[in-house]
């Protein structure tokens, strides 16, 4: 069963991340790399990706003739996707355990960020990755 683990935050969360010390960022990255290594070793890893910051995000709609209309103004409360992991696991409990590990990755001062990770199963009938 494939699950996607989504890490999101409002703009303030993204801005505060940029104020982390170099040491805190390195410890955080080391924890994420260790999770990545474990998932690869267990054969559960499918994909992971980080996204760029909210300042580069646009919302697009198609006008009548399919002309893209872009908008970059988001409410402060908007949750932005920071990145995701896709895992292929035996059951939902395993997906939650992995999400728990990600949530426990260290933040400022080495304390766990305790960030909420949204866990969603793939709609298998629409699965279309290559």
């Amino acid at each position, binding site marked *: 069963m494939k699950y996607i683990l989504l890490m999101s935050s409002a703009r303030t969360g993204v801005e505060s991340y940029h104020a982390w010390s170099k040491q805190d960022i390195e410890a955080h990255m080391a924890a994420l790399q260790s999770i990545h290594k474990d998932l690869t070793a267990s054969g559960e890893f499918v994909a992971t*990706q980080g996204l*760029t910051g909210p300042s580069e995000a646009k919302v697009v*709609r198609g006008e009548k003739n399919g002309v893209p209309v*872009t908008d970059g103004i988001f409410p402060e409360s908007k949750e932005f996707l920071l990145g995701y992991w896709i895992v292929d696991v035996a059951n939902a409990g395993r997906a939650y355990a992995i999400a*728990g590990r990600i949530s426990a990755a260290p933040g400022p001062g080495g304390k766990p960020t305790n960030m909420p990770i949204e866990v*969603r199963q793939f709609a298998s009938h629409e699965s279309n990755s290559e």
Partner: protein
Amino acid sequence: MKYILMMTGKKSDFEGYASWSKADLQANVSFMRAFSKELKDSGVFVSTEGLGWPSEAKLVRAGKNGEPITDGVFPESKEFLAGYWIIDVESPDQAYEVAARASQAPGPGGKPANMPIEVRPVLSGHADLGL
């Protein structure tokens, strides 16, 4: 340059989708299949996925000993990811054009749903964050 195109909706949007007629749903799915094929044929396709519904979504945090604490209660205003496309294109404008096409997928009565599609550049590495 890789971009992710995200289609999101609130719980009420998902509930609305569940009440679409069979003909409307079929038209929407046909559009999505043709759209995927077109992206593959033009060489910009990387991946696409649809996600399970909000009722199956959980929010997970680590407890004191690192054990997962799950929660399934979300505010009504929460935007859920319905699905996404990742494409590899030459410019942001090309990504916006593809997103505009996705936005025009037919909705009830065959009219374009005109759904907003969030377009974000994908990081090639942490160097992109200036770290």
